[in-house]
């Protein structure tokens, strides 16, 4: 615990080893993580946080690699969080995003961290929110958060970003269908990657048609961009559109809203963490088994026991005879 202020100072100085350690601490959660985040939070808000999502195989990692390098080309720095699923059976994970981020990750102005989903929906968005807080506080100009697909937790993570980029590739057939399930609504920028492949025009057309279905023109119309990330084509244009989107958020007051949401996610998860600790402590209580038996026998009600767990007072079997 005494290490937290020192660590925070080194993170704020952009010291890479400290950033890496801090990411481990906040990912793990708990009191040390909360203390660190509290020190770092006042120093955040500089980075442009961009969420990047899309189906597997559309080229997200290559695109993120290219975007980071494009940002470097403009004298800016980039922190990257790449989320991969954990096995629901063992909790283990193979995190392979670095394979396609070889170019950017050796640049001293780029820092990339793989994050395993560890099977907990809320925990994942908390870990992501905390991780991007660290990278933001470390002074990166861009923070790029990459996730696969369109599950609930991915949508929660994307809600942490200022700008959400949905990536598609032609020839995957059902990709437009796939993004209908919730992701379409949160996209601020569409990117059709692998645009040198046949069918790219169709993807762009379908997207445009879908956006036209909106009942009334939205305040922000997501641009549809085409890229060939593997050849680094179209990447500067993406950065331009993202900057334009950020200016829009700023002008309309939406940027503050998103920040509030990010902080809320941190607070909400701190609550869950606290509850989880109380529950773990209650289960260690010598009277826990008797308290449960009493609930089963109807001599005690479940919500009363829950209240006692939340108070963290212990003595679970007090008053049971």
């Amino acid at each position, binding site marked *: 615990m005494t290490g937290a202020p020192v660590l925070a100072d080194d993170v704020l100085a952009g010291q890479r080893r400290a950033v890496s350690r801090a990411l*481990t601490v906040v990912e793990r959660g708990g*009191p040390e993580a909360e203390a660190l985040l509290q020190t770092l939070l006042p120093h955040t808000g500089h980075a442009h946080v961009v969420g990047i999502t899309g189906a597997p195989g559309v080229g997200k990692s290559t695109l993120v690699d290219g975007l980071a390098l494009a940002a470097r080309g403009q004298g800016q720095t980039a922190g990257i969080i790449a989320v991969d699923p954990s096995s629901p059976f063992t*909790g*283990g994970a193979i995190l392979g995003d*670095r394979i396609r981020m070889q170019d950017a990750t*050796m640049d001293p102005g780029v820092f990339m961290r793989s994050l395993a989903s560890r099977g907990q929906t809320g925990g994942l968005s908390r870990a992501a929110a905390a991780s991007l807080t660290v990278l933001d506080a470390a002074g990166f100009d861009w923070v790029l958060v990459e996730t696969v697909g369109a599950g609930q937790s991915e949508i929660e993570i994307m809600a942490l970003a200022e700008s959400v980029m949905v990536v598609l590739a032609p020839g995957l057939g059902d990709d437009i269908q796939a993004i209908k399930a919730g992701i379409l609504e949160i996209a601020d920028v569409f990117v059709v990657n692998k645009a040198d492949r046949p069918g790219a025009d169709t993807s762009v057309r379908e997207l445009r048609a879908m956006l036209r279905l909106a009942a009334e023109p939205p305040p922000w119309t997501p641009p549809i961009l085409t890229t060939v990330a593997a050849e680094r084509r179209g990447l500067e244009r993406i950065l331009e559109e993202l900057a334009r989107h950020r200016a829009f958020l700023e002008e309309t007051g939406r940027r503050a809203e998103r920040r509030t949401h990010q902080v809320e996610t941190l607070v909400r998860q701190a609550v869950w963490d606290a509850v989880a600790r109380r529950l773990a402590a209650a289960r260690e209580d010598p009277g826990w088994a008797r308290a449960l038996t009493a609930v089963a026998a109807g001599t005690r009600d479940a919500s009363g026991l829950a209240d006692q767990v939340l108070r963290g007072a212990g003595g679970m079997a007090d008053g049971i005879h």
Partner: protein
Amino acid sequence: MRDGGERVIRVLVAKPGLDGHDRGAKVIARALRDAGMEVVYTGLHQTPEQVAEAALQEDVQVVALSILSGAHPTLVPRIARLLRENGQGDVLLLLGGIVPEQDVPSMLEAGVSRVFGPGTDTRDIVRYIQERVGDS
């Protein structure tokens, strides 16, 4: 797992050097994942600098190198030195692949904790890692 309790073991599986055979590395990666570890896999043809930088950014407790090219006498000491320079001298460094018996002492000298040769049971590697970093 996310309640501030035990730390999940994070392992970097890396293939430094020019040989293009990563079957062994993938088998290891899978075995470690199945044992509940988080495995960062970097792909083929990594330079020592790339391996050390990945270990730094990913804050792993274990770096498992797979080298089949015979280049371990040059690659391994450089990786070990870079890890130390990055403040990661406490990382458990493992070496697998084809390492002649007479090279093993110099690898241990360079900072490798253990050399696992061909035919090693992946369960032995899992157990070794769990014993060495389980409580850190």
